[in-house]
């Protein structure tokens, strides 16, 4: 099939970007979206032009490195699907596709479609862990965890840190990302000990990074490739209130 692409090109963080038009022919419906971009880049190289930079790595939907806005939707039209798992059979011959980076104040564009998501790492650094050092762990089965608790914790832990939640939110809020980590750890007995401290420092860091506030539109939940529930935001808020009330 033949496609008309409008792609965001930007040289570096401080330069001004623009949408540039490309045409691409010979796209097969079995190709993944990123393979379509590979094909376009190959044609740019043949024209001795600079390729379009985009982030990607595992190409199987788990590393969280890929992610672009496709026709205004984070990771494109399919539900629970990362950009790398989107295939061209979701498009038809003659379509025009708009491709832009995930946008947020806290995610500056590095070049073209590549962004800097290190703000997420900074939030985890602020407390998104259980403070156990190597070598001191007790025998694993001395901490029974009910099946339901383990599953609920896993549901939140499944976040791949792609940033689609931030990109799709009108406030560029990171509440789903942070809520997922708070929930994953606060549900587990091992994580409860530090739960109050964790939620306070992580939320503080989230604000410091320049993410917006959550206004409960649920847009994040809809675009999340892992289907993380906004109940994790509620859990974060509950943990936060508890921590503030009982703060010493």
């Amino acid at each position, binding site marked *: 099939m033949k496609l008309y692409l409008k792609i965001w090109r930007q040289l570096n963080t401080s330069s001004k970007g623009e949408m540039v038009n490309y045409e691409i022919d010979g796209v097969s419906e079995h190709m993944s979206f990123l393979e379509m971009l590979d094909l376009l880049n190959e044609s740019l190289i*043949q024209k001795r032009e600079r390729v379009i930079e985009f982030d990607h790595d595992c190409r*199987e939907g788990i590393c969280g490195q890929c992610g672009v806005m496709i026709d205004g939707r984070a990771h494109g039209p399919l539900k629970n699907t990362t950009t790398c798992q989107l295939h061209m059979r979701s498009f038809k011959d003659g379509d025009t596709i708009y491709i832009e980076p995930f946008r947020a104040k806290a995610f500056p564009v*590095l070049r073209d479609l590549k962004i800097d998501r290190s703000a*997420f*790492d900074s939030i985890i650094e602020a407390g998104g862990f259980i403070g156990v050092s*190597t070598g001191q762990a007790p025998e*694993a089965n001395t901490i*029974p965890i009910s099946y339901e608790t383990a*599953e609920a914790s896993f549901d939140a832990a499944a976040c791949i840190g792609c940033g689609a939640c931030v990109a799709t939110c009108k406030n560029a809020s990171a509440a789903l990302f942070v809520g997922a980590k708070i929930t*994953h750890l606060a549900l587990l007995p091992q994580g409860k000990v530090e739960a109050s401290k964790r939620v306070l420092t992580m939320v503080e860091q989230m604000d410091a990074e320049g993410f917006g506030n959550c206004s409960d539109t649920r847009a994040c939940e809809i675009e999340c490739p892992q289907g993380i529930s906004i109940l994790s935001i509620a859990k974060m808020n509950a943990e936060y209130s508890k921590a503030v009330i009982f703060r010493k």
Partner: protein
Amino acid sequence: MIDSKIPDGPLAEKWSNYKAKAKLVNPANRKKLNIIVVGTGLAGASCAASLAEQGYNIKSFCFQDSARRAHSVAAQGGVNAAKNYKNDGDSTFRMFYDTIKGGDFRSREANVYRLAECSAHLIDQAVAQGVPFAREYAGYLNNRSFGGVQVSRTFYARGQTGQQLLLGAYQGLLRQVSLGKVIMHTRHEMLELVVIDGKAKGIIARNLETGELERHVADAVVLASGGYGKVYYLSTLAMGCNSSAIWRAHKKGAYMAGVSWIQFHPTSLPQHGENQSKLTLMSESLRNDGRIWVPKTAKDDRNPNIIPEEERDYYLERKYPSFGNLAPRDISSRAAKERIDAGHGVGPMKNAIYLDFSDAIKSQGKDKIEAKYSNLFAMYEKITGINAYKEPMLISPSAHFTMGGLWVDYELMTSIPGLFALGEANFADHGANRLGANSLLQACVDGYFIAPYTIPNYLAGELNAPKNDILHPAFDEAEKAVRAQLDRFLNSKGTLSTDYFHKKIGRLLYEKCGLSRSKEKLEEALKEIKLLKESFEKDLLITGDDALNSELEKAGRIADYMELAELMCYDALQREESCGAHFREEYQTADGEAVRNDTDFCYVSAWEWKGKGHKPELHKEPLVFESVELAVRSYK
């Protein structure tokens, strides 16, 4: 002479003996010592965090935009540990034996025993970090049987065991970043090792955002940069996985071992076209219920659903009745290739086999199959557009895991003092074939439990060594070499892209140094690689600038792959036997089974770089078996 430094004493006491005698560094002195760790997968992140906890200063490097994205993230199935929670006869020795046998008796007894011995602690460690492993209703840890063993020792977190284990390690690592003990360098790629007076003392890294070359000095360097299966281009690996860190260390004197031992995963999706970049893995657990077959008649292109039962060849069940569809990876993959090569392949490119769930759906009901595999069936449909409840999946073997890597001794130190290699980057524990769910384990055990003893043992001797800085001439020389290569790429005037060369070398290796090899094909491959290298020198075209430039990054990796591919062929050529993943067509039984030669090839091949244009030199480390008897590995 190669010294593997295996400690004295009975097998079960070797690691305890080592730990009891290993040298220590006084806590007050640890902050005077700096360690570079390249890679933030399970091995790198766990090692960096553990050493930082002890008080050393760590600089950690990864090419991804966050440490959490390393390819450990993609492992689906699980992690093995000899906990014997199921009371079904598991033990450290049993796990050791399964791993030695699975590796076709081409790994070190002492290393493998230590892996099994440390496995139980890993589960403890991961649970304490908050890894949400699968649980039974009573709240205790669940586990399952996996990949050709007879006990249940595989712990799992849905289909995302790798991701969850890595998040545990990553969070541990970032905790140390927040405490100031680790300095994190994301989007950085190591491009050269710096060796001073024969010891590893630093690296040259390129900042992938700005293009700037940086010098980093340390008292020891750890490479935990993963495997090199991506040399085949089409593989189950992430696009960025590469061999550059280990290959550049190899060219500075570190030996490479077991280089041609590459595992082909039997259940990946087949190639569908020329522009494909990746072969997605479907979890091996599907083989528990799916039946593998091809049409009995070659070139039969009827719809699989109308091919009658008597015209189907369930070749794994036919050839290996006791293991059937669960035969180990190397055996299953090779059997698939044999059928495909004989013209029985199916699918649009005739390069696949069927994995059929219709019998399982008939006997267990669709609900049961859905409960077990719905996510995998959904993923299959997402990628192929085919509903596997209605027709069989198309699958095919794909390059996956590298058992080979940098040669290391029992302390995980390479042949360069002060340079350590951990996880898939080393060759150490899997022999000629890795068992399912042992890769996550090895990466974690290396980083959490082995390196934290062996690296301080080395550093204790470095405390009073003269301190180097980045102005040392060795840094000048290393940076100059990196600069020269980058400039060559940036000034390239050819017409062909990096991907063109990557696809070429990948296809060549699939055909001539892949699932089956022969002297004739390997010798052809060596000639063709030489030509391809010459073409790469003159025909490559890199566009863009010396800042953020993915084409420039790829060029260096492909230059390394070309040389690595050559060494893979030399390694496969010298090993005139069939063992594990290495199948030489000249050495097989009448019915196509591998013939191992313990008299002549019971050794680890360790290769020394002798300079561009020179043949590498082979060193042999004999493998000594005291606790197990070498047996023919039969799954019939």
